[in-house]
């Protein structure tokens, strides 16, 4: 365990469009940025065995998740010329159509932002201990499986 606890990435409930818009606006003073690439993961109302997903309940091993995200951040900053990076993930209930993951990467030129964004999102899905339980409209539930 590191001495310093990494900054939290967790937001209780969904991530709003307003929050994303405000995050973007905060970067106007960083005039060496030429490219922002953003990813937003949205909960789908998937139908499984005739049941439609109403919402996902997210939980996490928070301490370990923050360490993993810290490692993902450091690796990306070491590989690509990035100006900044912000990562947010929901905990608790996020309804169908709402946003549960927000990754925001900025760089002077677009290639680094695109490549880093994709890598970071893939690593968040594969390496960060977060779980989603899909709750159906009728109250049944199943644990989400990432592709």
């Amino acid at each position, binding site marked *: 365990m590191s001495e310093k606890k990494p900054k939290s990435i967790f937001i209780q409930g969904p991530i709003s469009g307003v929050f994303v818009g405000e995050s973007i606006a905060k970067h106007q003073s960083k005039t060496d940025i030429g490219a922002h690439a953003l990813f937003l993961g949205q909960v789908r109302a998937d139908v499984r065995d005739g049941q439609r997903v109403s919402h996902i309940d997210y939980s996490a091993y928070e301490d370990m998740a923050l360490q993993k995200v810290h490692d993902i951040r450091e690796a990306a900053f070491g590989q690509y010329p990035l100006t900044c990076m912000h990562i947010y993930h929901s905990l608790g209930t996020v309804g169908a159509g709402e946003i549960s993951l927000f990754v925001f990467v900025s760089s002077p030129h677009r290639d680094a932002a695109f490549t880093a964004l994709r890598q970071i999102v893939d690593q968040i*899905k594969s390496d960060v201990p977060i779980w989603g339980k899909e709750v159906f409209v009728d109250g049944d539930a199943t644990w989400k499986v990432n592709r």
Partner: protein
Amino acid sequence: MNIVSEKEIHLLAFGMIAEVLNSQERTWPWAMDTDALRADLIHIFPELKDMPFVIAVDMEVNHMNQPIPPGATVALLPPYSGG
């Protein structure tokens, strides 16, 4: 976190594993390594036999068998599904 004795570990469980154990957090008798712990857990909770999970010792996952220090924080992690 609770204080655990030298012959215990702090056991965390997540996702569908937490549902089987019916708790997210408990003390558990110390086992010398992750293979031994897995065997102990399956003995008490036979459903775990067919469920995929890895074991993190003090937040480190090693897909090989790894030793468990007494008093460690050990977490049972089913496949991640964030995002």
